[in-house]
């Protein structure tokens, strides 16, 4: 496990636009940053919810897409070489005896840092769960929301629910290892890539998979072992026999373990002051959509401002002996050297 232990100045939880810009502001003040995000790629909501939708209210950028903004921020922070820990969730936060904070993720990455910056937006992106009675009893044994190892599904009678890329990709990819494969979707149209849709249709035509136009209604089985899923089709309810259900209905945001970090919360938001954007625990900051203060606006540009002020206070914790020198990137050869442009 030793290769998974890191020590740094600042750990930022959440690699959305505000978390990414925090790397820049911290970097200008000589602080090194590690970022943690539950998604497999940086960008947060911008990349996950609206990668192709236009954003018009970033100062100086009349229009850009969520993905454009993410890409530009990554380019902007590149000189500071942040370390990303993606596809993992910050699970615990404790204070070590040496005064440093220690963040541990759900897959065992340990990061010691002088300051912690929570930039977790609306929380962790987690799979949307269908509202089916007794669902939790089957999760992990018969019901899944992702495929980590295809081998796990060898020889299974699989039902996949959904109509997007995840649902269709896994229908096509798991078909060869499954004992039987069925796909259920609410309509006979699919949002997935046309090529994948064609492959799925071909498999349906050849009898390789069953396609059901219906909606999930009830899980049938006992003690975590699924035997069938009852669905509602246009002609009524019927059962689809299966021992495995893979549900792909996109992601939703849940606050998650941040609620147990020991900082004050108010209606799932983290109250901060508006001078330092620090929580009620010194050394822990909250910026972006997850914080709250009088007059708060959930705008990306507000998060950028918060990142700049947070960094001033973070500097005082990381370099208590140094005097903070306020400089402009336009005129400071020192900052320009950090940015690699002089």
């Amino acid at each position, binding site marked *: 496990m030793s290769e998974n232990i890191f020590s740094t100045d600042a750990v930022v939880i959440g690699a959305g636009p505000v978390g990414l810009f925090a790397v820049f502001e911290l970097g200008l003040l000589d602080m090194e940053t590690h970022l943690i995000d539950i998604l497999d790629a940086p960008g947060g909501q911008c990349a996950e919810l609206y990668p192709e*939708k236009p954003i018009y209210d970033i100062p100086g950028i009349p229009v850009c897409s969520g993905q454009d903004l993410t890409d530009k921020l990554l380019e902007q922070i590149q000189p500071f070489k942040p370390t990303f820990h993606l596809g993992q969730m910050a699970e615990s936060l404790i204070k070590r005896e040496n005064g440093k904070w220690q963040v541990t993720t759900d897959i065992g990455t340990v990061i010691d840092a002088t300051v912690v910056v929570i930039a977790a937006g609306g929380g962790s992106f987690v799979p949307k769960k*269908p509202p089916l009675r007794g669902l939790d009893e089957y999760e992990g044994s018969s019901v899944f929301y992702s495929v980590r190892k295809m081998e796990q599904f060898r020889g299974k009678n699989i039902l996949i629910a959904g109509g997007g890329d995840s649902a269709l990709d896994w229908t096509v990819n798991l078909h060869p290892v499954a004992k039987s494969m069925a796909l259920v979707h609410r309509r006979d149209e699919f949002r997935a890539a046309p090529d994948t849709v064609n492959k799925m249709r071909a498999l349906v035509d050849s009898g390789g998979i069953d396609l059901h136009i219906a909606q999930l209604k009830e899980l049938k089985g006992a003690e975590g072992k699924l035997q069938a899923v009852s669905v509602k089709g246009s002609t009524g309810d019927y059962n689809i026999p299966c021992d495995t259900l893979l549900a792909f*209905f*996109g992601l939703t*945001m849940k606050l998650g373990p941040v609620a147990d970090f020991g900082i004050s919360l108010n209606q799932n938001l983290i109250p901060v002051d508006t001078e330092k954007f620090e929580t009620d625990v010194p050394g822990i900051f909250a910026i972006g959509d997850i914080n709250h203060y009088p007059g708060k606006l959930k705008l990306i540009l507000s998060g950028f401002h918060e990142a700049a002020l947070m960094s001033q206070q973070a500097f005082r914790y990381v370099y208590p002996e140094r005097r903070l020198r306020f400089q402009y990137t336009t005129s400071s050869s020192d900052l320009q050297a950090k940015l690699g442009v002089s």
Partner: protein
Amino acid sequence: MKIFVTDRQGVEHEIAGIDGWQIMELIRDEGLPIKAECGGSCACATCHVYVDRAWIDKLEEKGEEEIDMLDLAFDIQDSSRLSCQLTMTEALDGLKVTLAPE
């Protein structure tokens, strides 16, 4: 103008309608539990409502994007709409909707 919103406990709320606002915004600002995670950009399906039968035909038809996004909601009915895609106008004075299950 007003709209009537039935919450998940079956309680009906009368909310003032404001011309040009999204129905989602009216519901959210009333403090009713509607997630609307993407902020009204038709990108998440967490503002799903059922529209009272009498009102379905008075609404603008669903766009392709809304139909696609409804794939990410549950318990879809013919009356299902994403409330961020419904704009308040005089013609919708009295609109009745029910919050879909989460």
